[in-house]
Each structure stands twice: as C-alpha cells, then as structure tokens.
C-alpha cells in the first residue's frame, strides 16, 4: 500500500480528533477573549466533564433506567443524557470557581489569573483522582469494530459518527447563540471592548459567568467524546490534550471561537496525516511546526485581527 493511499483513513482520524480538540479550544478561546488570560485549568475541566458523565451514567443505571444501545452505536440514550448532565455540572463548577476564585483576582491582572488557573488545574486533577481514583475507567465495555465505508476506502467506527455529529451540533448551537441571541451578541461585544460594553449598560459580570458556563460545557463535551473515542478516561485526560488545544487556539487567532474551530481541525489533521510519512512520535511536533509556520506568515493567527 502506498503512503498516499493511507491519507483518507488518516483524515478520518484527524476529523474525529479535531472535533474533540475543537470543543476544548472554543472554550479556551472564549474565556481568553473576555477575561484576557490563558486558562490552564481548561483541560482538567474536560476531564472533570468526562468523570461527571461516568457518574451520571452510574446514577441513571442505579435509578433503573434501562439502556439498550442505539444500533450500531455502543451506547444508548443514557449516554446522551449523561453527556448533557455532565456539561451542566461542569458549567456550574466553572461558575462557582469564578465566583470564589477568579473574580477576586480579576483586578489583579492576567498574570495572577493565569497562575491561579494553574493552581486550580492541579487542584481539579487531584480532586478527580481522589474521588474517582487514578486507574482508567470505562463508559461501556463493548469494543467496536470499524466498518468499511463503501466507495471511500476508509474504515469508521459508528461511534465516531456520533463524536463528529455531536461536535458539529454544538458548534452550530454556539454559532447561533453568538450571532442570534442578545446574550451571545453581548458576549462578543464584551470580548471586543469591555469598557464600552459597561458604558452601554451590559452587565459584564453576568456575561463573564455565561462565558465560563458555555466554554466549560463545551470542554466537558470534548472530554466525554474523548472518553468515547479512547474507550477509557483517566484524570490526566484533559491535561494531555491541553497542549494541542493551546496550539489550536493560537493557530486560529486567540480569542476567536471560529479560529479555534479551524485551528483544532488543522492541528489534528496535520498531526494524523504526518504519520503517513513520519513516526507517530512526531505527531505533536508536526502540529506545532504547522502552528509556528502559520504564525510566521500571520502573527495574529488565521482569524485574528488585532
């Protein structure tokens, strides 16, 4: 088999991974755009979301809600319900963290916020490990075989359609939220110019809470989808993805959620496609070389305009 013939299959992997990275990257970009600091705890929020989902599944089972998998997926309605519950719980956690931690440091400036986010990253990861334990855990035991897609010469697991589909739906929801709702527009306005937003009577503290809630809910969804794709979750799940997520955000233009989407896809696709030519060990390096190359040409990232 020639190298080039592997590329379509690698692109499939890239799109699946890109969907997960994108969900993480959007939240990171949103919080950056409003609060102007890089939130290092974002990856651990993804892990927290993944574990909230695990517990929600257990609770749903405990409540006697029988779950028969949607054919051909390896899970059923309970997984969708648990995903939504996990997103809500993670969003609530982020809002609580903001009220008790970040809000106090906001006036101190971005560096203090950044450092406190590194602190909360460690705290979150250790709390996750304390509650759920360090060993890998599983949403479901069934192992899925990839199926051939007729005509395209690629193999895809049905669960991967679900991953890409959920990511797509969430991105579309976010787009409509940001462009069609008053709160969404106010969020973009606050990102543009917080002082002018205040002058216009926008309650920027409320907008900040919304930003945490939405960004973290998307991150939690990313964490759950990563758990479905990898078949297991560990407390380190998000931390390991954080570097790719940062690369995606910077590549796309920091602060721009649409840039984060594009960045996530480019980082994942370029990393996967490179494995046709290079050892898998170089995957992250290739993603970062692409990022650096783009930044040399466009220092503000693909969609950055400032």
């Amino acid at each position, binding site marked *: 088999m020639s190298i080039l013939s592997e590329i379509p299959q690698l692109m499939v992997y890239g799109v699946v991974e890109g969907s997960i990275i994108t969900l993480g990257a959007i939240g990171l970009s949103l919080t950056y755009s409003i609060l102007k600091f890089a939130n290092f705890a974002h990856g651990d929020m993804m892990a927290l979301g993944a574990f909230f989902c695990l517990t929600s599944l257990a609770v749903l089972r405990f409540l006697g809600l029988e779950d028969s998998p949607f054919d051909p997926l390896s899970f059923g309605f309970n997984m969708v319900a648990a995903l939504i519950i996990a997103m809500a719980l993670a969003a609530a956690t982020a809002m609580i963290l903001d009220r008790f931690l970040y809000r106090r440091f906001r006036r101190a400036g971005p560096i203090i916020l950044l450092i406190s986010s590194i602190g909360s990253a460690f705290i979150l990861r250790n709390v996750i490990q304390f509650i759920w334990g360090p060993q890998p855990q599983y949403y479901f035991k069934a192992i899925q075989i990839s199926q051939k897609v007729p005509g395209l010469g690629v193999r895809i697991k049905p669960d991967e359609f679900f991953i890409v589909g959920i990511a797509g739906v969430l991105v579309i929801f976010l787009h409509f939220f940001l462009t069609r709702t*008053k709160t969404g*527009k*106010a969020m*973009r*306005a606050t*990102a*543009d*110019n917080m*002082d*002018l*937003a*205040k*002058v*216009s*009577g*926008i*309650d920027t503290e409320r907008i900040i809470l919304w930003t945490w809630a939405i960004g973290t809910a998307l991150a939690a969804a990313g964490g759950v989808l990563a758990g479905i794709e990898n078949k297991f979750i560990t407390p380190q799940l998000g931390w390991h993805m954080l570097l790719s997520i940062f690369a995606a955000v910077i590549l796309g233009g920091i602060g721009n959620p649409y840039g984060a989407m594009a960045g996530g896809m480019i980082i994942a696709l370029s990393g996967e496609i490179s494995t046709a030519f290079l050892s898998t060990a170089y995957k992250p390096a290739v993603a970062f070389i692409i990022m650096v190359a783009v930044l040399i040409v466009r220092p503000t990232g693909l969609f950055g*305009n400032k």
Partner: protein
Amino acid sequence: MHILGEVMSILDVSDIHSGYGETKIIRGVSITVEHGETVVVIGPNGAGKSTLLKTIFGLLRPAQGTVSLHGEDITGMSPEKIVRMGICYVPQVDNVFPSLTVLENLEMGAFIRKDDLGTSLREVYKRFPVLEDKKRIKAGKLSGGEQQMVAMGRALMLNPRVLLLDEPTAGLSPLLVQEMFQKIQEIKENGVSTLIVEQNAAEALKYADRGYVLAMGKNRYHDTGEKLLSNPEVGKLYLGA
C-alpha cells in the same frame, strides 16, 4: 445651588475634584446643563475635559463634589446604573464594537431595553442613512466618520435625556466636522440635552448654547457660545484666532 421654585438643571456638576489615583486632573469644576441645551466644554490638552465626562458617567469616582441628574444625586454610581437613568456616553476612542456589525452595535446600545427596537432603529437610520446601508458590515471595517456615526447611533438607541460626547469630531475631515455638528444640532432639536467636550473649539461654540473654558483643571470662562467666540482673550488663548 437651586433656589426653591427655580427649574432644576437636567445635569448639575458641582465643585468636582477628580482624576486617576492620587493625581487630581480636575480640581473644582462646576457646570450645569439645562433642558434641551447644547453645552460645550473647551480647553487645552490636559485641562481635564475627558476626565470631567468620565467622572459624570461614573467611570471615575470624584474625590470631592457632586453630580446630579435632574436633582437626583448620581455621584459615584456605576456606569451601568447611570445608563439606566438616562445618560449616554460616547467615548472619544474605541467607541464601537469592531467585530460586531453596525446593526449589532446599535442593538448593544439598547442592551438594557426589553421592548421592540424598531422605532429607535428607524430614527437612527433616518439621522444617519449610511448606517442603514451598511448595517450588515462589521463596524471595524468602516471609515472613521462612519464609526463616529455608529458610536452616536449606539448612544441614541436609548433615547437618552443627556448625551455626553467626548470629542465627537476628533480626526474627522473639515467637511465631516460640519456634518457631525449639524447632526448634534438635530439631536438637540429632538429635546436631548448634550454636553460636548471639543478640540474643534471654534466650530463647536457656533452650535453651542453655552460654553465653558477649562484650564488647569478649573473653570476659566463661562458664557454663551456666541459671547465666548467673540471674547478676544478666549479667542487668542483657546481658539487659535
């Protein structure tokens, strides 16, 4: 001070001392704006003109002095509250949301309103027809003059009782300066009281009912626009005549 029976000023700024941190840029400025008046504040750079507007609007907290809106003390209130009381403020720079469309900028101006914006939008478009043509364009892509119109339109979306304008003609071509003052005149005719801080002093005073000259953070002269224009001392020192 109001004597019983006298009509209250819509805006009354009394003996304000304010600035950034320990540095008090204005030290004892008093001005009033009556109903439907256009009042212009002029003065050299550093005289404290912008500081005055920011203090009125609650962006700076005065060390001393009071600001009242129609007799109600609003000193030290937050901008979010002051907007709700009917004062709108157009900053000198960064006064539009660049990544939002013109229409979205106007909608954000009316953020605190829960009713239908149709009538206000039509009024703003009537006053600034170019904004209707470009309503789907991002404000950051417009020219400086057009951005200034977006900024004014944003403030007018609340039908404010008092409009605070910080150098609305800064950086505009002479032709646009004229046009901007005509717009301000029209807005005044709609019953909005306007307080303008200006560099284009001579031009601004022509449209002003009254003017104040600030210097070194204090009131220097106060008269009708016309009289200030013909005052030789003001002319020599502040109008470059």
